[in-house]
Each structure stands twice: as C-alpha cells, then as structure tokens.
C-alpha cells in the first residue's frame, strides 16, 4: 500500500490537474457550431492546443495541424515532463509503439498506392511523421521501394520485420495490405499484453482489463465493418481477430456476425458483457444502417465509461495513467474530427453527433 502511494502519488496529482484541463463537452458543442474553419481554430487560442492556431495561421494547411495533433498524441506516452514511474515504463513504451506501428502502416499504404496501385501520393507523403518513437524506421525508403522485397529489406533489424515478412506474400496475392496491417495490430496488442502482465497484481488487473476492452471493441468494430461493408465471410475474418479480449468471446463475435439484425444483437452482447454501460446503449444503434462513425462513438463511450470508473476508484494505481492517456487520446481525436467537419462544411448538428 505504502509503495503504491509512493509510486503514484506525484503522477496522480499531476495527472488529475491535467485531466481537469481536458476540453469540456460545452467547448466541443460550441466548436461544432462555428461557422467557418478559421473561427473553429481560433477557439483553441486560449487552450492547451494554442499551437495548432499558430500552425494554421502560418501555413493555412489543416493537414499540418493534423500532423501536429498526431505528434502530440504519439508523444503522450513518452512525455518526459510526466516522469513516469519506472514500473510502468514497459507498458508506456508498448503504447507508444502503437503510434510507430500506425506510422509504419501509413508508409506501407503510401508504398502500396504509389508502386502497386500507381496512384499519386504527392500530398500524403509530406504529412507522414518522421519522428523516431521506439526504433528508427526508414519511412522514405519504404515509400520509395519498388517491390515488396525491398520493403521487407528496409525493415530488417526492426521489431516489425518478422510480422511484415510473414504477411507480405498474402498481401501480394490478395492485392491488399490488410493482412499486414491487421498482423501489425495483433503484434501491438500482444506487446501491450506482455507489458501489462509484467506489472504488480493490482496494476496488472486494471491494465489487462482496459487493454482487453480495447481489444473487444476493436474486434467488434472489424466484425461489423467486414460484414456490412465488405461482405467478408466469418471464416476469413476470424483469422484477423485479436486474442486476449476482456469480455467478448470468439463465440459472441460469431453471434454478432451471424445475427439479423446485426446491431440489435450487438446491443445484446454488449449489455451482457458490459452491464455497467447498458444505459449508454441508446436506440441509435438499433438501426442496421448505423454508420461507422456512430459505431465508433458508441465504442468510445464504453471505454470512457471505464475511465470514469477508474477515476472514481482507488487513486494510486496505473489506472490514473491509463485514464489520462485515454482521455487525451479521445480529446485529440475529437479535435481532429471536428476540424475536418469544419473543413468540409458539415453542418453543426451532424458534427455534434459524431464527436
């Protein structure tokens, strides 16, 4: 007990102060009602995100703003000012690696679009994050590669080489990078689980629960997308399911896939597995046509419900750290969504629905 307090007392105080500065619901509602992108961005002037106003005024380029937000998000886990307790560093590194994997996936997609699909990638190339997070990766060389073999060659010596090498042939034969992308996601979650298992008992339980919930939500999201948008058979989807979920078992995923209507069954499964969030499951997902954004929103609510649970519980655990990361990640993603909505002049009511 004393050692837990000693480990987490400082970080707990620091993070609770930071959590108090997370942008409020009212701020986002006001933001979504802005009548132009300029006004929307100006609203960030007196917040922790004032830098994005400066970037936009200097460049006029929303993609530069988005790149900055991605860099902010990716640095959450390696923020030196937090002075994370040593015990949580492996897990923080595993989380940070998620952004490196995301970046690698972006580079692979650029290679694929450029060399395989012969598409123009001029604009996208500039907005790839070049910062090293865990290990140096030659992103430019990967993008400029002309063959899959060259890509594999450039990744030699990185932790991702084996995963990519294993699934590149399948990507080549299916003319899709999804097998590689999905394998990298599974690798990421496997690393997270390994890091979480090395924690002390109380921290381990909390971390495994949160990671498990994220895995559950990721699996559900995939199942729905693949069936609704790509009509992919379950047997094929099952290859991509991430193991170590918290409450949604393989059979439940199977049930969701085969159910008609699918969304109603999803509600049943979620109610059964996460009884605490039953009230969050409003009528909006009853409709089979519920878009992916709405689904994402619902899944987000589930994870935020977990964060609330952690914040109101025993304070001296890794929970406060994970809650902070999730809240900040959620906040940054909301900002991205609302800015894009502003850029495409989507009406405020619709924007408000998706943030």
């Amino acid at each position, binding site marked *: 007990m004393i050692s837990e307090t000693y480990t987490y007392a400082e970080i707990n105080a620091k993070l609770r102060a930071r959590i108090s500065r997370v942008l409020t619901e009212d701020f986002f509602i*006001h933001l979504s*009602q*802005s*009548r*132009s*992108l*300029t*006004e929307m961005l*100006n*609203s960030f*002037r*007196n917040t922790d995100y004032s830098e994005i*106003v400066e970037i*936009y*005024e*200097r*460049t*006029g*380029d*929303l993609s*530069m703003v988005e790149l900055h937000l991605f860099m902010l998000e990716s640095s959450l886990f390696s923020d030196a000012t937090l002075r994370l307790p040593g015990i949580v560093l492996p897990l923080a590194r595993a989380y940070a690696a998620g952004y490196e994997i995301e970046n690698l996936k972006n580079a692979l997609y650029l290679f694929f679009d450029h060399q395989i699909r012969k598409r*123009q990638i*001029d*604009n996208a*190339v*500039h907005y790839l994050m070049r910062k090293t997070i865990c290990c140096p990766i*030659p992103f*430019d*060389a990967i*993008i*400029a*590669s*002309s063959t899959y073999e060259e890509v594999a060659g*450039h990744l030699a010596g990185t932790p991702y080489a084996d995963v990519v090498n294993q699934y590149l042939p399948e990507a080549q034969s299916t003319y899709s990078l999804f097998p590689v992308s999905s394998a990298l996601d599974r690798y990421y979650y496997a690393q997270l689980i390994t890091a979480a298992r090395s924690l002390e008992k109380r921290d381990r339980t909390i971390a495994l629960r949160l990671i498990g919930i994220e895995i559950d939500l990721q699996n559900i999201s995939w199942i729905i997308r693949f069936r609704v948008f790509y009509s992919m058979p379950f047997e094929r989807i099952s290859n991509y399911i991430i193991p170590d979920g918290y409450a949604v078992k393989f059979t439940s995923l199977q049930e969701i896939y085969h159910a008609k209507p699918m969304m109603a069954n999803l509600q049943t499964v979620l109610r059964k597995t996460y009884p605490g969030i039953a009230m969050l499951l409003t009528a909006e997902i009853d409709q089979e046509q519920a878009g992916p954004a709405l689904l994402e929103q619902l899944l987000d609510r589930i994870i935020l419900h977990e964060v609330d649970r952690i914040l109101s519980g025993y304070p001296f655990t890794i929970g406060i750290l994970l809650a902070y990361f999730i809240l900040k990640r959620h906040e940054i993603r909301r900002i991205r969504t609302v800015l894009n909505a502003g850029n495409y002049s989507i009406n405020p009511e619709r924007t408000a629905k998706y943030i």
Partner: protein
Amino acid sequence: MFTEPMLRFFAIVMERDGEKVSETLLGTGTVQFISIDALDTKAIDLYHDNAASLTTTSTRLAELRKRIENFLDSAAIVPRIPSTTDPAKIGSCDIPKENRFIDSLAASLQEIREKQRLLQNEILRYEEIKHHIDRYGSDNYSTTIDRNYSYISLKQGMLPSDAEPLLKTQIHTIPLVPVLLGEKDGYRHMLLVFMKRDSSRIESVLSTLGWQDRETGSAYATSNNDTIAAIDEKLDTLRGQQREFQHAGQAVITDRKDILLDTWVRIRVNELLLNVRSAFNRSDRTILFSGWLPSAQRRLIYDSLQKVTAGRCHIEWFAPGAISDLLEEPVKVPVKLNNPKFLAPFQMLVTNFGIPEYGTIDPTPFLVITYLTMFGLMFADIGHGLMVALAGIAGGMLLKDKPTYRKLSALLVWCGGASIITGFLFGSFFGYNIIKPLWFDFHGVVTNNAHSSSKIASIFDILGITVRFGITVISCGLLFNWINLIRKREWFELVFEKGGFLGGWMYWGGIYCGWYMVGHGYNELPSPGTLVVLVVVPAVCLFFKGPIHIIKHHSRFTITSVIQMVMEWVVELLEIFSGYLSNTLSFMRVAGLGIAHVSLMASFFTMAAMMKGDNPSTLQSIGAVLLIIAGNALVIGLEGLSAGIQALRLNYYEFFTKFFLGTGKLFNPVSLRDNII
C-alpha cells in the same frame, strides 16, 4: 464592515415608456432584476412574462457577439463598452446583416489560408527535395550511394540562355531546382533537381525549349552545397511569401478593428437591453418589473425613472425583511460587498472562499490585516519583500487586460510591502543583518546569536508570539460570529453553537488554564473552583442544547433521543476541545515558516563562507556571491509561495470557519460594465 444594505422595488410604468425605461435602467447599472412570479396575486395574471419570446433573439445576439470576440481575440484585441456609452443612442442591431459581414470576414481569411495552403504545399515539396539531397546526395561524380531509394531525379544538360525565363514561367507550379553549372556559347549548363513523379511534365516542357541532355561527368560539376543553396534560396522566397500572407490574414482583422469593436458594442448593449426587457412583465398598457438594488441607489433609480417616464411611473420599495414577511419565507437577498478598489485583491480571496450572507460581516478589511501580518511574519526581509513587490508591479503592468492576474499582481505588491515592514522590524535585508531591528533580531534568535538583553531570546518566544497572534485571530472570529448571529437574530445558535457563547467561554477558559500552567512551570493547574467556572460550567450548559432543541421543535423525549443527546454532547465537547486546541496551535506554522526562512538564508551564508575559505581567490569570491544570489532567488520563490499559501490556509480554515458561511449570492446588476470576457 457589513454587506451593503439592499432594497427590493416593484415598479409599474406605461408600455409606451418601456424602451426608454430599459435604456435608463441599463444606463444606471444598479439593478439586479428578479421574476415577480412568486407573488401569486390575481393582478399578476394580467401580465405576461416575455422572457421566452426574447430568448431566441438574445441567443442569436450572444452567438454573433462570440463570433466577433473570436476574431478580435485572434488579433489580441479585448473589447470593452466605453464608459461614455449611452444605451439610448446605440440603435438596434440587424443580426442577419452583421452575420453576413462576419461571414465575409471569415471568407476573406479562408481565401488567404487557401493560398497559404498551396504555398505550404510547394514549401513541403522543396523541403522534401532538400531532405533527399541531404540523404542521398546530388554530386554527380562522387556519389556512391545507391539512389534507388530516393524519389528525386537529377538531370544535367544545356539550355539556350534565352530559354531560361521561359523554363521558369512554364513550370512554376512544379518544384524544380535549377543549379547553374556554367555558361558557354549561348547555352547554360545546368543541373535540374526535381521529384521523380514530375519527370514526364518536366521532360515535355524541356523538349519544347531546346534542352540538350549531357552525360553526368561532363566538363561541369556541382556539389550538394550548390544544390542545397539553390533550394534554400527558393525556400526563403516561399517562406517570405508565406509570412506576407500571414500578415495579410492579421490585417483582415486589424483593418476592420474599429468596425468590429463598434459592432461588438452595439450587440452587447442590445443584448443587455434584452436582458433588462426580459425581466418586464407586460399587460396591454403597462409594464411591471422588480429587482434588487443597493439602498444608496434608491434616489438615483427613482429620479431616473420619473424623469424618463415624465412622472408616469409608480415605484414601491421594500426592505428585505418586509419581503420575507410578504412571502412568508426567508428571502435570498443578493450581496454587494462595499470595499474600496485598492482592496480588490483581498476581496478576490474572500469571494474565492465564498460570498458572505446578506447583512453579515464582510471579512475583507480584516483579511487585509491578518493575511499581511501572517505573510510578513513568515517572509520578513526588506530585500525579499522588495523583489516580491517589484514582481507584482511588473505583473500589473504586463497583465493589464487580465483582471484576475492584475489583482494577483496587486496582492504581490501588498505582500512585498508587508515583508518590507516586518523586514525592518527584524532587521533583515537579503538575509543580512545589516539594519538595526526595530523589534527583535529574528536571525540572531534562530542562529543563537541574539543580543542577551533582547526580550525575545529563543525560538520558544517566537512560537509564543504566533500562538498569541492565533488566539487573537480566533477570538476575532468568535466575536464576528456572535455579531452575525445577533444581527440574524439566531439566539439559540448564539448560545449553543460551537462558535457561540458557550464555545467561546470554554475556549478562553482553556486559554487561561494553559497560560496558568505555562506560567507555573507546567506543573500547576488553576484552582478547582476556577476550573469549574471556566470549563465545567459551560460544558454542562452545553448539555442543555439537545433538550432545548427538542422543546423548541415540539418533539418528544424518547430513550433513543436521550442517548443521542448524550452522545452528541460528548462528541461536541471533544470537538470543541480538540478543534480549538489544534486551531490555535496551527498558528505555530507562522513561526515555523519564519524560522525556515531565516535558516535557509543562514545555510546559504554558511555554504558561501565554506566556498570562500580563509584566503579566497577571485573565482571563489565570485562563486560565493553567485551562491548567495541563487540562495536568495530560491528563498524568494519557494518561501514566498509557501508563506502566501499558508497565510491563506490559516485565514480560510482557522479564521473564516468561525463566522463565515459563504452561502450568499453576489449582487449581479445588469450593467454596461458587465464584464463577460
């Protein structure tokens, strides 16, 4: 000393005077309007509340105002209503028209941003070329790096001299870096650097301009530096253009600053007028409204309304008590604190804790004394106080437009002043004892070098001073509580509350006993008779609190209620004894921090002396001086902050809690000076 006396009024004016009345009321800025729905009389039914119908307009005005503030904020302009504004001369606000104006402003800015975006794209492409040259090189002879991974192309050849301007105009949208290698026979030998993806477009342009390829390794050579210099030149130009666009964006706002500010004032005044009118209840011919105002403003409101309505106005005035009698329930009267402007920093500290109840003591003037005394005792040094005061003056000048920071800066000046005064009392200047102390030598006492004739000769004497100070502060708190309870006519609480007569009796009885013991070498208590009078009698009297409460509320005595009464009595006695003891001893932290302040400085002086040694070199002397400067800076930063926080804590928890409920609601009149930003 007390909150300002308030009055509630009911006024009835003719419907046709409605606009002028609202403008006048806003102009005076002294009325907090309230709904008259509570008065359930048939006459009121004739009037309809028009707040709902005005809400939509009010919301649209507020949205428009926020849009303008958003733009003004981007140019660091803070809008204010000028003090000379006359609401009657402002005129109405055409919301759609103003929105169209703001839309056009946003569109102009968006247009500039779009140009910036295209320019930024070009900058990024050149940066990308530069990045690749840095990485893979463009030196045609020496490079041995495999360029397969790069996606820039290099092309060397000759272009007719007169075709170069054409090259620039025809491919100005494509990032291309031409590096001049030499000139001969009307041809320019050049190295062109561009992205592989632009090859086909560049090739086709070059073929129309008479370009002739040359093998790499021909008579001319270049190096990475030449190429990078060419790119840097191009990038400088583009970034310069980007800055111009950025300035143009700012100019869109600053050039229209006056229009924006005028529009903002018009919107804000209209918004406030709507706010006033939303409090009006209208019948076909008359308007009825009601509100609170400070008693002192009664004549102003009366004269203004009579004047503007040419006497067609009837007003009735009610004191808060009369309203309570009328409604047959206590009425929540808004609270106006009436302190001079220079006490604003302390009023901020009070309102941060809570708003005093109407009619009770406003602790602001007392806080000035207690807070500054505590701060001064904990941070007694002329030099340190001077630094804090200077920081406050600088903060006040730099943060003029931010009221909260301005008040905090003013507080720093006050605290600095207090430290200077106590610095003179204890003779301390940046930790040096170079001034003769007016009271006693604090440094000497802490470092055991005090003059033997000094009355304050040990740390215990210093602790004793702060305990006495604590007793005085707590006693004031109890006294204020009694005054408040008497004013509120809460006689039962006055006698039996923890901070009432019995609590005070026991507290001072306990203090006397403690003093007696200390005065008798800690081994003698006052006589039993004295003890009974000072402690036992009030404790026994306190037991009657429960029974009197039961009788007062016509409840019945049961076994459970009797057991409960005894338990509550015991707990309350324990609370009184332990609470007051800890409250009093808590003030020893004032001495503690003062001692820490001196000890820290003494430590730095010792360290500096050790650094210097007996025969110091110049370097050692400089080091010692630097150490003392750093030590002073550390003490000012750390101790200053600690002293400020501890003084606040003692006031909030040991002083305010004795008499201050903080459940009042601040008087908030609709006024042109209404600060919404």
